[in-house]
Every structure is written in structure tokens, then in C-alpha cells.
């Protein structure tokens, strides 16, 4: 049963990937002019001679003289077979090189934020649901509203301002200036912690707010069900009653929230890391977009989208493993 479910999901996964890649390719092609013409203009402006053999080479490699659908074919084949995402004219480097330097940090921070988000939202959601309309519940509801209303970049600005005014330290970047080029050491690690904590906290906050609401609503729903009343009537201890069924049932769907939390966290990471000038993809993507360096920006978008879809797939499978209702419902559909 489970194997069939997984295979079915994997088969749905493939057309989605193809559709994503087509959208990204269209986005790459949107700005007027292509990579080569931009490159030639740039070379001419800087007074360098344009190397004709290099141009011909690139044209052949990426099929730039072909119609769009053939170009797409070249583009996607280069990516799938050689991990060749094209070149960034702004950096004069292969895109894959820039991505391999910066992308792990972005994904690492997003995943760390995911852990923090869940780690905060689930206990708070349980507390709020079991203490409905208490002072604590109202405080968390209020904080949740703030988390929803204050966008990440404003939180980051506010945090930088408050910390700078109070301590004189500019908490931007992942390390203080003296550690940026230093080799990894314990001191460098310690230096990173408050900065990493700030980024993760800010990115996580807005998603946490939504998740707390969901956890609270889900658990409140469960608590109203008849089996809870029955268990209570039979004299089951309140703590045992809570942990045995309602919480387990309410936490299960949390796993499936990955599908919308992950894109949100990555969006948050991009904006917040620009404000805090982190050595991640954010500042690079922004500069790439402003100068319409589309291979770089598009490749980033492609990779994070594919990773998000993959994350959703994993969470769906995980949900099917822990929750038989999904598994059987999914197959019977």
C-alpha cells in the first residue's frame, strides 16, 4: 500500500518539475536581450576586444542561435546532465560555482528556521488551546498578530537599529569583520551564534505566528470531540488524556504544513539576508535581478522551487507513514 502511494506521488512529481523548469526558463528569457548581446555590449563598453571564437563556442554550447523551445532543451539538458546552469555575466563565472558557494548557507538557515518554527509553534499552540482565553493565550495571540503584521525586513531593520543604538555593534553579516576571512575556530563559531540566532529568529517569527494559530485551532477541534468527553467521563487523568490522542492527532497535519512553510521561509531568508547582508543567496539574487543577470537569478529560483517540491513530497510520504488514514484514503481515491 505504502509503496504504491509513494510511486503514485513520485509520478505526479515529474510533470510538476517539468512545468517549474518551463516557467523558470520563460522568466530567464523575459528581459529584452539575451546573455550574449549583454556580454558583447559589456565587453565593448570596457574597451576589450570581443573574442569571436568564445562567442561561437557559447552559441553552440547553449544553442543560442536556435528557436526558444530548442534553447530550452539545451538549457535543461545541460543542467540535468552536467549541472551546468549557464554563466553569470556579472560575476564572469559559471552560475553553478556561485550557487555552490552561497546556496548551502541559504538552505541551512531556512531549515534551521523550520526547526525553530516548529519547536516554538507546537508547544505554544498546545498551551494556547489548553488554556483558551487565559492571559497567556491572549499574549500569544497578540504576539502572533505582530508576527503576521511586521514583515521580516522591518523586524531586521528594527533589530539592527536597537542593537546598534544600545551596544554600538552593527550586527550585520554572519561574522564580525575580523572573523570573515579567518579559518574556522571555536571563537569564530561563537562569534557567529548571535548573528545566526538573529536571522533564524526573524525569519521564523512570521511563520511561527501562522503555525501557532493552526496548531491551536486543530487541537481545539480535537478537544471538542466525543472521545475526549468519554475519556474524561471515565476518569482518565487530564495530562494522559491530552497526550495520548488529541495532541498526536493535531500534530500529525503539522508535518504536511512543510509545503507552505518552506517557500515562506526561503522568501523570508532572501529578504532578511539582504537587510542583514548575510553571505547567502539573498544579496546575490537581488543584485542579479537589478542588473538582469537572469541565468543566475533563474537558476536560484529553479533550485529552491525544486527543493520545495521535494520537501513537500517528503512530508507527504512522512505523513502517509505515520497516519494510516492518509495512506488508505490516498489509494482509494
Amino acid at each position, binding site marked *: 500500500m505504502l509503496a504504491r502511494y509513494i510511486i503514485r506521488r513520485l509520478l505526479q512529481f515529474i*510533470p*510538476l518539475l517539468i*512545468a*517549474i523548469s518551463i*516557467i523558470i526558463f520563460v*522568466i530567464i528569457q*523575459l*528581459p*529584452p536581450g539575451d546573455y550574449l548581446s549583454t556580454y558583447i555590449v559589456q565587453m565593448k563598453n570596457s574597451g576589450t576586444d570581443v573574442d569571436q571564437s568564445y562567442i561561437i563556442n557559447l552559441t553552440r554550447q547553449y544553442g543560442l542561435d536556435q528557436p526558444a523551445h530548442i534553447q530550452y532543451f539545451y538549457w535543461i539538458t545541460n543542467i540535468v546532465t552536467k549541472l551546468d546552469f549557464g554563466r553569470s555575466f556579472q560575476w564572469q563565472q559559471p552560475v553553478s560555482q556561485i550557487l555552490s558557494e552561497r546556496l548551502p548557507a541559504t538552505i541551512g538557515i531556512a531549515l534551521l528556521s523550520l526547526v525553530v518554527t516548529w519547536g516554538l509553534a507546537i508547544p505554544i499552540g498546545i498551551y494556547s488551546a489548553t488554556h483558551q482565553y487565559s492571559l497567556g493565550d491572549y499574549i500569544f495571540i497578540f504576539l502572533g*498578530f*505582530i508576527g*503576521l*503584521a*511586521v*514583515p*521580516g*525586513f*522591518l523586524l531586521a*531593520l*528594527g533589530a*539592527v*537599529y536597537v542593537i*546598534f*543604538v544600545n551596544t554600538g555593534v*552593527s550586527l*550585520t553579516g554572519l561574522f564580525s569583520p575580523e572573523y570573515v576571512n579567518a579559518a574556522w575556530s571555536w571563537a569564530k563559531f561563537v562569534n557567529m551564534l548571535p548573528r545566526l540566532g538573529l536571522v533564524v529568529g526573524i525569519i521564523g517569527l512570521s511563520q511561527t505566528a501562522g503555525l501557532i494559530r493552526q496548531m491551536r485551532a486543530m487541537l481545539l477541534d480535537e478537544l471538542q470531540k466525543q472521545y475526549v468527553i468519554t475519556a474524561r467521563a471515565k476518569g482518565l487523568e487530564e495530562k494522559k488524556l491530552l497526550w495520548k490522542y488529541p495532541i498526536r492527532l493535531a500534530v500529525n497535519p503539522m508535518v504536511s504544513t512543510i*509545503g*507552505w512553510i*518552506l*517557500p*515562506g521561509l*526561503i*522568501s*523570508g531568508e*532572501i*529578504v532578511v539576508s*539582504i*537587510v542583514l547582508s548575510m553571505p547567502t543567496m539573498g544579496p546575490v*539574487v*537581488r543584485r542579479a*535581478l*537589478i542588473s*538582469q543577470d*537572469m541565468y543566475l*537569478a*533563474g537558476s*536560484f*529560483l529553479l533550485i*529552491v*522551487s525544486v527543493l*520545495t*517540491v521535494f520537501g*513537500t513530497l517528503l512530508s507527504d510520504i512522512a505523513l502517509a507513514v505515520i497516519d494510516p488514514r492518509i495512506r488508505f484514503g490516498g489509494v482509494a481515491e
Partner: protein
Amino acid sequence: MSARKRRQQQDGTYEVAGQWKLMWWKFKKHRLAMIALPIIVIMYTITMFCEFFAPALPLSRFRDFKDCPPSAIRLRDADGNFVGLHVRLKESVRDPVTFRKVFADSDQIIKLGFFVHGEPYRFLGLFDSDLRFFGPVEKGGEFFLMGTDSLGRDLYSRILFGGRISLSFALVSIAFTFFIGLTLGGISGYLGGFADTIIQRMIDLIMSIPGIPLWMALAAALPTTMSSLGKYLWMSIIMSLIGWTGLARVVRGKILSLREEDFVIAARLSGASHGRVIGRHLLPSFMSYIIVSITASIPGTILGETALSFLGLGLQAPTISWGTLLQDTQTVEALALQPWLLWPAFFIIVTVLMFNFAGDGLRDAADPYK
């Protein structure tokens, strides 16, 4: 049952009350929403008529007052005598320690008043006027409620003009979202089958791409030569191209559940066309859910526009929006020396918070029979 409901039931008003009346009664019970609604109305009114409400024009420069901090509104002068609403003129002095130019209050008084005459403006493009709601009594007085920017322009006036762009942007974008979401959601739910599958897969696809990077990429693809009005419209279309999915899901879900209801079958048997069934019978019965869904997506649109404009990828100067105003705060130095430049953030947060409250109230009210 509340006392009012009981009373209404006794005199019969509860039974005969229409759907919308019941919703209004339920909405009124949500206190935060009842606070939020008037604030939203006030904000839209002020920003719509911002020429009248702003003390200065957004582009007029006070050359001797660059980076001037906000001036406090006072009633009494330095000697404690009552002189009415006024501010003290800022004068430029050197900080004895850092030797930077800073501003300090002087003894000179700038009187303030309501319905004063200032620089002339064209009101909503209709007629010329120089009447202002509130400002310095003398024309061109240096009154900066929220300080000035690095070119010496009054920040408060700019915030009001920026609010007109940011707040109307949300509405324009919502209008596009409404159109796309309703059409595609309606087709998906009403026709079902192949069309439904295609549209549902499209929604899955759009939802799986991280929103802000996608917005950024599409916005960056707009030609740099585009006029500011064109950019404004295209940005709102981009927002709605990505944002329609939530509404389409609501519409589809509602249509699916209503499609087999007796009144729909009756309508169809009486020979009503598809269009008439959707427009006359289905749509009104879930209009309230659409309104909830739309209200819920306004804060996201406002935040998206401000974030993009802040990053330099959305609306761009000379267009004034809350996001472009915040661009000035991108460096720690600017924040530390001119913290008043963060005032637009206050307006963003209040607006989004109010829309969230109102949306919560609407969600409770959407199903008044519960």
C-alpha cells in the same frame, strides 16, 4: 444566547433579518474588528485626499533643513506663556563633540492652525486649491511632524502621498486577483473534469515556488524604461498572477459543495444558463467567503509591495510608496543618525494589523447561521 439576540427573536427582527444584516450583527461583536474598520476608512480617506491633509508638497525641498529631526507640537513657548499650537523653528548647530551638523530648537515660533493656506496644488486633478487641513499658518513655514529626508523634504507629507500609492496598489491588485481567482476557481469547480485537473495542478505549481523570489524575478523582467504608471499596473498584475490561488481554492470548494444543492438543480431544470446559475444563484450564496478571502490577502499584497520596493525591485522613485520611502533606511548609519526615517514602517504595521483584525471579524461573520 445573548440578551440582544433573545430580544431580537422576541420582537421578530431576528427571523426576518437578511443574511447581510445577520453578518453585520455578528461582525459588530468582534471588538478588534470594530476598532479596525474605522481606522482603515480613515487611512483610505486621508491618503485619498492627501493633498489636502499633507502640510507640504511631497517634492518641495526645504534646502536648509536636510535630515531635520521631527519637531514637537507645543502649546506654550519657552517662557511658559500660552501661545496656541506651534512648533519651534529648528536651527542648525555644530555638535561640540562630533562636529556634525545637528538641529536644535530655537526660540522662534512657527504657529500652526487648521484650514490654512499653503503651496498651491491641484486637487485630484480637478481644481486648484491651496487650502490645507493642518499646517503652518504662514505659507512655507518649516513644520516637520516626522522630520525630513536627506533632500529636506517633509517626511509626513511624503508618507501620506506614499500611502495613496501603497493602499490603492493593494486594491488594484486585489481587483485583478478577484477577476482571475473567480474565473478560474469558478471554471474549476463548475465544469470539473479535465479543466479542473489543469487548474488545480497550476495552483500546486504556483504555490510550490517561493513567492518573494518569484515576484522579484517577474518584477525585474519589467523593462527599465517603463513609465511609473505602467510599472504600478504591471506590478499589481504580477502580484495577482501569483496571489489568485487562494481565492480560486475557496471559490472551487464552495461551488463544489453547492453544485448539487436543490436550488441549483431547480434553477437548471427551469432552463437557466450556466452563466445565470453561477452569477445569480451560486455567487451570492458564497459572496461572504470571497470577501473574507480578499480581505485576508490585502495585508500580504501591501507587505509584498513594500518589501519589493524597499529592495529596489518594485515601484521606483520618483513614485512614492511606503516601500520606496523605507529605502533610505537601508544602512545602519542612516538608522542610527535619522531614526525618524522609520516612520513609514509604523504606518505599514498599523495598516496590516488593522486589515488582519478586520479580516478576523469578517471570518467570524461570514457564516452568521453558525
